[in-house]
Structures are given as structure tokens and as C-alpha cells.
């Protein structure tokens, strides 16, 4: 196995142009340099592109009751915002410029302990037995009042590698609707309205689902190894039908982001197979994962050794991925949320 190759991160949310697109094609074992704007011509008419339409929440709460930041990491209940319980991770309070790894010495909160982030009040309902920073919390308001308080008191989860703090406008995909994501489903950040139009004109079919993307990093290795937590998803009947039609006629299903792979592949493994409705994705897409539904993925660039990278191994073999990663590093590709992207097409 080749040593991991490190790519530099894109350091600002502003783009000067479309992201670069690295095409890794398992069907002919090729690697090509393209631009995301060329995506329509890189796909075939009839291919189905499935997107995650979750909007990104302001999931970071600076507690005013404790010297801590509470990062909401996922829904723990099944009814978003009506009587919702969140999984959350505690950090020592600090500025967005401090790497999260340096903020793991968080104050402990006990079961039943109350906390506040400004006017938003909540209570700890459970603490993980192994990781005291991993808690389950419930807020006092529910529904619209909870949403209003969260948007008033919370802010978007920040990344210390950026040159400026992020705001909500920076982290929304152009086709987002319900606020279910705790960090942005970032593979879609480069998919502009113009690109959607180009895809439609080329005859690419588009479908959407909602997947509550959780947090990507907790600052500690032992906790990171438990990511991703179970994530809530909802697959509409239109997407189920579109997938069935594509598969029946031998057309490809391409996921925009790992969240879409996780939702579709988790649902496909249920006793009744892929059906419309809500569910909780528990599938871990690590080494040994065999895809059943998805033929390709548009994704951010990820380093070897990460779980994202393992996921890609279910599409193409490890040696091609390693070559692709070396090529990306030599060619100056940028990684992380606002960086370049890759299109990984599976071997037939």
C-alpha cells in the first residue's frame, strides 16, 4: 500500500471558478483531469444523478452556562424538530481559529444537567459511558420555536483551516430545502443552478433525497472512529421510482456525496429493499462494503486512510485510487469542503 498523500485544503469558501474534477473510471482504469462544469458531458444521457437536499443547520452552540461549545451531531429522535433529541459533542469553548483537536478538554456535563446558549435552554438526557464528551440533549422549545432559537443562538460549524469564519450563506447547496444537515453535504457545493440546467439539457435524470449529514470530526481519534453516527434519511417515492427505472434499463445511478450512498445503500439492505420513506442509516461504508444500488459517486477529495477513501474502494480498486491520489497531489488539487471534487465510476 502506498503511503498516504496529503492534499492542501481550499482555504476560502469563495470560488474563482468551478472546482476541478478528477475523473477516476474503473471501467477502463483511467484517470482524467476535467472541470466540474464538464460534468454533463462526462455522464451519459439517461444516467441518474441523486442529490441530498438537506440544508445545513447552525449546529454549533456557544454555551453561556458552561465554558463549552456544544456541537449538534445528529438527530437522535425520529421526528425532526417536533420533539427532537439530538446527539451532540462537547468541546472546550474557543475561537474558530483553534483546531478542534486542541479543544477536546471539555467540561463534563452530567445526566439531567441543564445548559443554556443565550436564550436557548436544554438538558442533558444521556452521557456516553466511554466518551463523556458525547451526550444526548433535549431542548425546551420544540418545532418552530426550537428552529427560531437555534438560528438565533447557533452558528455554522467552523473549520480552522479557512481564512475567515463561515456563515449560513457559505454552506448551503443551491437545491437545499429542509434543515437536516449538521455539516454541509459538501459534494454538492459546486453544483450551481447553471450546472443543474446543463445536466437536464444533456438528458441526465435528477432525483433527490434528504439525509441528515452528521458531523465529520470530533477532534479525538477514539470518538472519530465511531463516526458516522446513525443518520436519519427520507427517500421520496420519486427517487425510488427513478432508481428502479435506471436499474431496469441498465443506466447508471450516480450519488452526489457519501450521504446519498449511505441513504440508498442502507435502504436497499432493509428486508423490503429500497422503499420510499424515512429511516436511519447505520451502514458503515468501510473496506469490504459491497454496493448494491450506486454505480458512481461525485465526492470531495479525501486522503487515503480516511473512511471516505475506504468507501471509494467499493467503486474502483485500491491501486487505481492510490494512483489517482498521487496524481491529484502532483497536480495541485485541493481537498476539504470548499475544494475540488472527484467523479469515481465503478467497474461494471
Amino acid at each position, binding site marked *: 500500500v502506498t503511503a498516504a498523500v496529503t492534499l492542501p485544503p481550499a482555504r476560502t469558501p469563495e470560488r474563482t471558478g468551478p472546482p476541478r474534477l478528477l475523473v477516476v473510471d474503473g471501467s477502463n482504469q483511467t484517470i482524467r483531469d476535467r472541470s466540474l462544469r464538464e460534468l454533463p458531458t462526462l455522464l451519459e444521457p439517461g444516467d441518474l444523478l441523486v442529490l441530498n*437536499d438537506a440544508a445545513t443547520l447552525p449546529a454549533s452552540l456557544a454555551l453561556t452556562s458552561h465554558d463549552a461549545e456544544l456541537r449538534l451531531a445528529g438527530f437522535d429522535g425520529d421526528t425532526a424538530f417536533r420533539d427532537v433529541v439530538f446527539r451532540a459533542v462537547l468541546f472546550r469553548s474557543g475561537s474558530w481559529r483553534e483546531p478542534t483537536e486542541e479543544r477536546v478538554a471539555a467540561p463534563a456535563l452530567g445526566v439531567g444537567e441543564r445548559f443554556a446558549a443565550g436564550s436557548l435552554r436544554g438538558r442533558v438526557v444521556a452521557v456516553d459511558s466511554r466518551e463523556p464528551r458525547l451526550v444526548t440533549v433535549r431542548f425546551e422549545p420544540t418545532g*418552530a420555536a426550537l428552529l*427560531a432559537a437555534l*438560528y438565533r443562538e447557533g452558528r455554522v460549524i467552523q473549520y480552522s483551516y479557512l481564512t475567515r469564519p463561515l456563515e449560513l450563506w457559505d454552506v448551503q447547496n*443551491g*437545491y*437545499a430545502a*429542509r434543515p437536516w444537515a449538521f455539516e454541509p453535504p459538501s459534494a454538492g457545493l459546486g453544483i450551481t443552478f447553471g450546472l*443543474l440546467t446543463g445536466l437536464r439539457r444533456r438528458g441526465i435524470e435528477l432525483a*433527490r433525497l434528504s439525509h441528515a449529514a452528521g458531523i465529520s470530526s470530533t477532534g479525538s481519534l477514539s470518538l472519530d472512529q465511531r463516526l458516522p453516527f446513525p443518520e436519519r434519511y427520507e427517500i421520496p417515492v420519486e427517487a425510488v421510482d427513478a432508481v428502479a427505472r435506471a436499474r431496469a434499463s441498465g443506466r447508471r445511478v450516480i450519488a452526489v456525496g457519501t450521504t446519498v450512498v449511505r441513504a440508498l445503500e442502507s435502504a436497499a439492505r432493509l428486508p423490503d429493499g429500497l422503499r420510499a420513506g424515512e429511516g436511519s442509516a447505520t451502514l458503515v461504508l468501510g473496506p469490504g462494503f459491497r454496493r448494491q444500488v450506486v454505480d458512481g459517486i461525485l465526492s470531495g477529495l479525501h486522503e487515503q486512510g480516511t473512511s471516505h477513501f475506504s468507501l471509494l474502494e467499493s467503486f474502483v480498486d485500491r491501486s487505481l485510487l492510490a494512483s489517482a491520489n498521487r496524481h491529484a497531489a502532483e497536480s495541485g488539487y485541493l481537498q476539504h469542503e470548499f475544494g475540488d471534487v472527484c467523479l469515481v465510476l465503478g467497474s461494471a
Partner: protein
Amino acid sequence: MTNFQQTAALVTGASRGLGRALAERLAERGARVVLVARGKGALDEVVEGIRRRGGVAHGLTADLGDKHAVHPLAAAAAELVGPLDLLVHNASELGPTPLRPLLDTACEDLTRVLDVNLVGPFRLSKIIAGSMALRRRGTIVHVSSDASVNAYAGWGAYSISKAALDHLGRLLAVELEEHGVRVFSVDPGEMDTEMHRAALPDADPHTLLDPAAVARTIVRMIESNGVPPGARLEASSFEVAS
């Protein structure tokens, strides 16, 4: 959009006048409606009224002239009623009253009117229409005014904002049509509303239209498949046209 039972709608400026009447009519027809207004008191009363009559309604307060108000608003709306299928840009600001010549209008007042009447709808459509396009399902309605096509002395700031709003609607219509999203504008005519009283305090209310009647016409336009993309319709002549 003939079946409002399956429709998630958002109406701005919904605590009074035409916006209120539109929200009430849509809810009566079975739509799940989010009503948006700046002040909470009047809005809550309208929402309660709709609920008492068995409708599904939620009130959200927001200042549409504020860039940071849009994401909380769109997110809460989508969570409360589902991804939006219908967006009615009805809220608008007249500018300072009594009405005055354009050259007597403060620069800041013109900016504020444009922020609320033009940039506000742009921002909201910018973050909502992408989801409509992805679903190939949606209608966006701009409430216009005859002041958008006629130059009435004294109506400067409002008039300019509505002329630009008409064109915003035409451009969105052109770009969204191939995604199955319809956009059109409606000139509702002169109605007996608080805004009309602020603009023309001496007008005889008996010569003015009832907002509830105009709302019924606009809801028929939304239902109709015959409205051309980007059209600017007059509520008073729609019956004849259809």
C-alpha cells in the same frame, strides 16, 4: 398545481391585506401555508383564524430586507410544511408617506424599498427555487402593481421597485421554465388595504376592490395551466382571459 392538498406554500406580507387573503384562500383550498410578516401580533391572529377553520398554517416573523433573515425563514418553512411548492412574493414597502416626489426621497429610503420589494424576493427565490427545480415542481408569484408600468408622480421608490420586480419575474421564468417551475406576476388592482390608505388616504373605499375577491382570482391563476411563463397578469381582466 390543481391539487392544493399536496401543496406547501409560503406567502410573504401575510398578516394583512392581499397577503392575508391569499394565505387564507390557499389554506381553505387545502394547502399547507407558511405566513410571513414582520410583526408577530397580527400574524398570530391570522394563523389562529385559519387553524380554527381547519386549515394548516404556521406564522414566521422575518424582515425580508435582511439578508440574514432568509435562511432561518426558508429552513423553518421547509421543516414545517415540507419543501415549498408555491412561493408568493406579496410583501412590499411603500416607502415614506405621505408620498413625495422622487427627488425628495432620501437615498436610504429608496435603498430600503428596493431591499424589501426587490432584493428580498430575489434572495428568497435564490434559496428556494433550486429545490423546486430539482423536484420539477413549483410556482413563484410576484405581486406587482400598475405603478410598475405607469409613472405616477409621487410613487417613485415603490414604482421603481415594482418595475424591477416584474423583470426579475420574467428572468426567473425564462431560466426556470425548463425545470418545470412557473413564474408569473400579478397586478392585483387597487384594493381596500392599509397600504392603499397610507398612499391615498382620501380614496373612496367603495371604489376599491376587496382583497378576498382578488385573492380568489390569483388562486385561480395559480391553478390554471394556461398562464404563460413570465406573464404579467391583471387580476381584474383574468376572468375574460381564461
